[in-house]
């Protein structure tokens, strides 16, 4: 293969990878509806009065700590919202049951404990705040 074609192929590879990265990044702040998932795996007293954020992590999750810190600041700002964390390192069964393919994954539970939506990846703070507000039924004051 001539060098110029090889260079073109490599440039195309860089461009496509960058595009994929950009799309992945954008998708992470988009909540997916998660109707009809029960939350019997969560201790009832870990739930908040208005809503609950559940973060799923593993020991090998590089980006989980930053999400945990971000969610903590969010939960501190909104009354009646609790934050729970589930370490899937020891719970492969739960990961399959809840169809969790990556960590971090964040579930938004409403006042009754039903899972309303989920974020796969590292969501932006305002995206989680907006979703929390929607689930609580009023805009979150954050």
């Amino acid at each position, binding site marked *: *293969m*001539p*060098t110029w*074609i*090889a*260079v073109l*192929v*490599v440039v195309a*590879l*860089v461009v496509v*990878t*960058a595009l*994929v*990265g*950009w799309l*992945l*990044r954008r998708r992470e702040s988009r909540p997916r509806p998660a109707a009809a998932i029960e939350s019997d795996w969560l201790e009832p007293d870990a739930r908040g009065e208005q809503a609950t954020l559940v973060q799923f992590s*593993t*020991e*090998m*999750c*590089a*980006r989980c*700590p*930053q999400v945990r*810190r971000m969610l903590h600041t969010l939960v501190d700002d909104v009354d009646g919202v609790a934050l729970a964390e589930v370490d*899937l*390192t*020891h*719970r*492969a069964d739960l*990961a*399959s049951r809840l169809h*969790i*393919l*990556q*960590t971090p994954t964040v579930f938004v539970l409403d006042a009754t404990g039903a899972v309303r939506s989920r974020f796969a990846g*590292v969501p932006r703070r305002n995206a989680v705040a907006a979703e929390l507000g929607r689930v609580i039924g009023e805009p979150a004051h954050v």
Partner: protein
Amino acid sequence: MSDTPAGIDPRGPRFGAAITSVLLLIVIIHGLTGISTAQGAASFGWFAYQPLAGQTFLLNGFVLAAAPIGLRILDPAFLLLLVVALLFLWGVLSPRTAPWGVLYRKLVQPRSKPPTELEDPRPPRFAQGVGLLVSVIGLVLQLAGVPWGLPIAAAAAFVAAFLNAAFGFCLGCQLYLLLQRMGLVGRRRAA
């Protein structure tokens, strides 16, 4: 979690991934222009390689399949990917002393702002292992005479390294949950 190791600056692994990405791009260019993908007898000219007596190969066949093992190894793409694989191995065995990490701490970190957050060193180390595995697959395919094997493996490793460097994604870490769900890694809680 008392067994959690001391945190590291998350920019360190990303700095390393950026250098790895560049090296892998060079591997891919060599792979595409060199013996890994070359077809037909015409390409032999620039290797100064004379087919061994009695050895036959198809005119439109891949050069790699007919090349002796020495040529498969002395290919620049193979040698450079071998270096990258050894660097991955270093990162798995001893992340503290791995060259890019040392370079980052000696040259870059003193000149930049202190990190706003520290990260667990285990996920990047696991990802180095995944990088090592992918590189070794590429090397083995080249040794086995499989055309395109090396550049494609290098491209897969590049995608992972570039996404890590540019976006902070860690595909190796994502893979951990999938492997764990298949029961290959991790521990189950005692019932």
